């Protein structure tokens, strides 16, 4: 086993003095597709926020490609290749679509690549961020993060509140992004079926801890575990 990839060891973290994550251990290999599922309040969003350095780390360590990152500010973690698409999308309403993308551009990323991935954004490139539909905002949030050329893409409930046809489009984009194996994708999602069909590995979270970590297909077939922790059975 090499040092490449992301590693969380015994991580306890939260907001201020509050502990949300409880001794989380996680390893993400380069090019891996990981699904993180769990009920509301299980700690999924906090897990991604902790990886990005947006929470308070109480205990444990985080390493990226063998180097500790727990003391680094979010912008430095971003520079090292971590990219978060937040659940809240956080589109800059006063900027146009194109300016939202340009505000994040780093490395070799180009507007053309972003528009090739999301042609709809090209059509709306002069529109303000506040004038976009929910689906378009999500596309912009993803494209904006991709403008930072991340090696590890952290997606926080990207399908939330979107029409089924948009969800299908976005899942296809995630497939395309992960298909070359150069970029790891962590997909936190309430829609367990979609997340588990996309990922090759899955973790199940409950009460701030990881209660299951294994192949996505295995979890998909474990009706008992899914029922117990998220109240659904995908085989039903």
């Amino acid at each position, binding site marked *: 086993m090499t040092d490449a990839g992301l590693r969380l060891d015994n991580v306890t973290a939260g907001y201020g003095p509050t502990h949300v994550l409880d001794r989380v251990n996680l390893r993400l290999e380069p090019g891996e597709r990981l699904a993180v599922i769990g009920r509301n309040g299980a700690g999924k969003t906090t897990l991604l926020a902790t990886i*990005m350095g*947006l929470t308070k780390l109480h205990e444990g360590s985080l390493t990226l490609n063998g180097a500790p990152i727990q003391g680094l*500010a*979010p*912008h*430095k973690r*971003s*520079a090292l290749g971590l*990219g*978060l698409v*937040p659940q809240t999308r*956080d589109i*800059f*309403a*006063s*900027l146009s679509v194109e*300016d*939202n993308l*340009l*505000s*994040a*551009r*780093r490395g070799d990323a180009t507007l053309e690549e972003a528009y090739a991935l999301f042609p709809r954004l090209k059509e709306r490139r002069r529109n303000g961020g506040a004038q976009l539909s929910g689906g378009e905002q999500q596309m912009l949030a993803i494209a*904006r*993060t991709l*403008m*930072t050329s991340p090696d590890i893409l952290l997606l926080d409930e990207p399908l939330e509140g979107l029409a089924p046809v948009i969800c299908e489009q976005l899942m296809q984009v995630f497939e395309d992004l992960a298909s070359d194996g150069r970029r790891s994708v962590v997909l936190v999602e309430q829609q367990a079926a979609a997340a588990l069909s996309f990922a090759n590995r899955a973790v199940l979270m409950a009460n701030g801890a990881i209660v299951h970590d294994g192949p996505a297909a295995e979890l998909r077939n474990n009706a008992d575990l899914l029922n117990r922790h998220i109240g659904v059975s995908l085989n039903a």
Partner: protein
Amino acid sequence: MTPLMKSWAPPLALLALAIALSFLMPFNLAFLTRILIMVVLVLSLDLVLGYAGIATLGQAAMYGAGAYAAGLFAIHVWADPLAGLMIGAVAGSILAFVSGLVLMRTQGLTLIMLTIAVAAICHEIANKARDITGGADGLRGIHMEPVLGMFAFDFVGTTGFWYALAVVVVIFVFVALITRAPFGLSLRGIHESPDRMAAIGVSVYWRRVTAYTVGGAIAGVAGALSAQITQLVSLESFSFTLSAEALIMLILGGTGRLYGAVLGTLIFMFVHHWAAANDPFNWLFVIGAMVLAVVFFLPKGIISASAGLARLIKGARHAGS
């Protein structure tokens, strides 16, 4: 109208307005020049507050630093106007950078209070260093060389007006370029969501320090311009009133929009001029009423009225067709 014409039309219209005013008010060139100096100061505040979202009531600190630096430079070293502007910019940027290293670690009310404190400290230093600054009597004895070695400052204020107008044009273009560059876009992003900008790789702290420093340099230019044209620097250069008035001008015009800064300054200065001439004791009432009206009816500033008017006209055309 082509997009190129559209983007050039407003600045050219403003330039034409300034030139027209100089012919319409030939005996008020000093007043028009004062407006131009304030435009530079308000543009600096717009970059800092309107774009980067740095709440400040101490922009006069950098203005005053630029004014005293340019005045002292002219008296003791070299009275060339352009060199003096550079010195003003350097003084303003150094003060903004040094104070910004501390100030930009704070937010909200704490930040506002600290910016006021910085200006107050500068005011007190200028007051105490009487031998250098002239103290409460002000810094006198500034005699500038002709601009570019050709245009001497005259009693009527013709050279001062054109010189200030040229500086306004250069600063306006400079700020417009900055705000449209990725740096400016990131400032607007920081204004809306600092956490998001940090998560997409921007060092929010250093970006804010940089914006504050650039804004300080521009405020320093405004101060230097004032020192060179009026040939006097008073303690009022550091006053809270100056910072507050600049803020009111920006709010009136519309924050985060360069034309808003220009329009707000024009309207404030003209209303102030007219109201103070008609009622020297109660003119503040007029200013207060105007600010209240704008905050209630045009919260995005007077500049937003043009967009509303355009929508109304468009709607009327659709209704008529």
